[in-house]
C-alpha cells in the first residue's frame, strides 16, 4: 500500500490515481461531494444573485406564504426565508467546518503524543479521553449555555473542545503501530528527536486516518451546531444559523407555517448526509478502518 511511503512527499504520495478512481466509483460519495459544492455555492455566492435584507426587520412583510416574490415565504419579523437560508447556512457551514477541523487537530496532537510516548503518559492522557467521552457533549453544552452566549469564534472553540476525543483515539491507535516501524527506529538511532519522528513520519503516515476522521468530524460538528441553537447557545439575532432558524420556527410550525422549519431542516440533513457519504467513500478508498 502506498500509505507506507514516508517523508516530505508522504502526503502527495498517498493520493495516487487508483485512490481517486476508487472514490469516484462510490456513487454516494461523489453525490455527497456534489451536494457540498452546491451548498457552498448557494450560501456564499447565492446572496450576490439573490440579494435580501437580513439585518433589518420589515413588519409589513411578516409570515408571508411562499410566493413569486418570496420563494420560501417570510418569517415572523419579515426576513425573506430563502435569503435567510443562505445567510444562516454561512454560519452553519463555517462553524461546522472550523469546529470539525479544530477537533481533528486537537485530537491528532493529543492522540499522536499519547501513542508515541506510551507508558504512564499514554495511560493518563487516554483516561482523560475516557472521562471526556463519559460526559455526553449535549450535557456540557447545556451547562455552558446556562453561563454564556458566545459569538462565532467562541462557538467554534467550544464545539472543538467537546468533540476531539474520538479522533484522538483513532490517531493514537495508528501511532501505536507506526512508531515501531523501521524508519522511525532508524531516525531515532541516528539522533532524530521525538518531535521530528512525530512530525516527519507518524503524522504524514496517518494522513488517511486523519482525513477520514476530519470528514466525519465536520458532519458531526454541523449537526452539533444545529443542537447548539436549540440549547440556547447559538449566534444572536440578527445573525442566525440553520439550527437557529429551526428553533425560531418551532412555534410557528404548530400554526402551520411549515416553510419556516422544513427548508433549514432539510438543509442540515442534506449537508450532514453529504459529509458522511464523503467520509464513507474516503474510508473505503483509503482502506482504513474507522467508524462502523
Amino acid at each position, binding site marked *: 500500500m502506498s500509505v507506507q511511503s514516508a517523508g516530505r512527499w508522504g502526503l502527495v504520495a498517498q493520493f495516487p490515481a487508483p485512490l481517486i478512481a476508487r472514490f469516484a466509483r462510490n456513487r*454516494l460519495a461523489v453525490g455527497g461531494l456534489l451536494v457540498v459544492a452546491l451548498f457552498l455555492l448557494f450560501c456564499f455566492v447565492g446572496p450576490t444573485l439573490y440579494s435580501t435584507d437580513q439585518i433589518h426587520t420589515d413588519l409589513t412583510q411578516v409570515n408571508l406564504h411562499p410566493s413569486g416574490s418570496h420563494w420560501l415565504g417570510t418569517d415572523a419579523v419579515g426576513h425573506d426565508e430563502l435569503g435567510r437560508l443562505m445567510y444562516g447556512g454561512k454560519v452553519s457551514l463555517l462553524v461546522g467546518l472550523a469546529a470539525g477541523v479544530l477537533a481533528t487537530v486537537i485530537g491528532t496532537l493529543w492522540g499522536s503524543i499519547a501513542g508515541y510516548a506510551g507508558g504512564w503518559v499514554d495511560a493518563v492522557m487516554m*483516561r*482523560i479521553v*475516557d*472521562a*471526556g*467521552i*463519559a*460526559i*455526553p*457533549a*449535549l*450535557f*456540557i453544552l*447545556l*451547562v455552558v*449555555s*446556562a*453561563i*454564556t452566549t458566545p459569538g462565532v469564534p467562541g462557538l467554534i472553540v467550544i464545539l472543538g473542545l467537546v468533540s476531539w476525543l474520538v479522533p484522538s483515539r483513532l490517531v493514537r491507535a495508528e501511532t*501505536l503501530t507506526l512508531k515501531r516501524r523501521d524508519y522511525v527506529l532508524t531516525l531515532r538511532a541516528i539522533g532524530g528527536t521525538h518531535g521530528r519522528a512525530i512530525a516527519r513520519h507518524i503524522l504524514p503516515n496517518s494522513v488517511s486516518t486523519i482525513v477520514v476522521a476530519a470528514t466525519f468530524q465536520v*458532519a458531526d460538528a454541523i*449537526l452539533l451546531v*444545529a*443542537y447548539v441553537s*436549540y440549547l440556547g447557545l447559538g449566534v444572536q439575532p440578527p445573525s442566525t444559523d440553520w*439550527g437557529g432558524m*429551526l428553533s425560531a420556527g*418551532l412555534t410557528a*410550525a*404548530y400554526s*402551520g407555517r*411549515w416553510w419556516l*422549519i422544513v427548508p433549514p*431542516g432539510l438543509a*442540515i*440533513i*442534506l449537508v*450532514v*448526509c453529504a459529509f*458522511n*457519504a464523503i467520509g464513507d467513500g474516503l474510508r473505503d478508498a483509503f482502506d482504513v478502518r474507522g467508524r*462502523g
Partner: protein
Amino acid sequence: MDTLLYLARRIAQALVVILIVTVVVFGLLHALPGGPARGILGPQATPQQITLFNHDQGLDRPLPVQYLYYLRQLLHGDLGTSYTLNEAVSRLIEQRLPKTLVLTVLSAVLGLVLAIPLGMWQAVRRNKPADYVITTFSFVAYSTPVYFLGLVLVLVFTQLVRWFPSQAPQGDTVGQVFADPVALVLPVVTGAASMVAVFSRYMRAATLENLSEDYVRTARAGGSRQRAILFKHVFRNSLTPVIAMLGYYVPVLFGGALVVEQLFNYPGMGLLFWSAAQSSDYPVLLGCVLVISVATVVGTLLADVVQRIVDPRVKAGRT
C-alpha cells in the same frame, strides 16, 4: 487467571475515569461566573445576602477543600441538596431515573429489533438496490437533529392525523407511565431512529465480515445451504459484537433522552437536568452528569469484557 487480571485492571481504570469525571465536572461548574447565589437569590440580592448564602453552602472555602468535602459526601451516597427544589439530589434522581430508563430501554429495544434484520438483509444483498435504499435511510436518520425529527413526527401525528398525543405520559411512577402506552409511542420512536441508523450499519459490517470468514466457505463447501449458514453461524457471530456496541452507546442514548424529554415534556432525568441548567442548580447538574457518566463507564466496561469473553481474538488486539 489472565481474564481475572484483565478484569481487575479494567475496573481500576474505570474508577480512575470516574474520579477524573468528578474533577472535570466539579471544576467546570465552579468556574462559572456569578456563582449560584445570583441564580438562587435573584438579581435583587444584596452583597450581604450573597455572602451569607455562600457561607451557608460552603462556597467561600478554597476549591480543593470543597472538592474533597464533595467527594466524601459522595462516598456516603449524598449528592447534596437541590437549590431550587429543596430536596435531596439523590432522591430527585431516584424518582426521575427509572422514567428515563423506561424511555431509553424501549428506544434501544425498538432500535435493535429493527436494525439487526435490516443490517443482515443489507449484507446479504450487498450493493443491490435494497442495500442502497437502507443505507440512504440510515444516512438520513443519522443526520437528522433529534428535535427536528420529533417536531416533524408531532406535526404529522397530532395535526395531520390525530393518532398520538404530542405530550408524553405525565405519571410520577413507572406504572403510571405504562398506563398511557399510546402517549409513549412518539417519544420512543423519536429516540429509536438514530439507533436504527447506527446499529444497522454495525450489523451490516459485522455480517459482511463473518460472511468472508473461512468457516463460511468451509460450511458452503460442505454443502450447507446459504440460509442455514446465515442463521446458524453468521447471525450468532455477528450479533454479539453488535450488542456489545450498546455499551459504548450509553452516552448517546442519554443525550437523546435529554432532547426527547424536553420536546415531549416527559418528566425524566433529562427534563430535570434541563430545568436545573436554566436555574444554575449546581448540585442537580453535578448529580445528573455523575450518574450518567458512571452509567457510561460501566457500559463501556461491560462492552469490553463481553467482547473479550465472546471473541478470544480481541485479547491479542486491544491494550
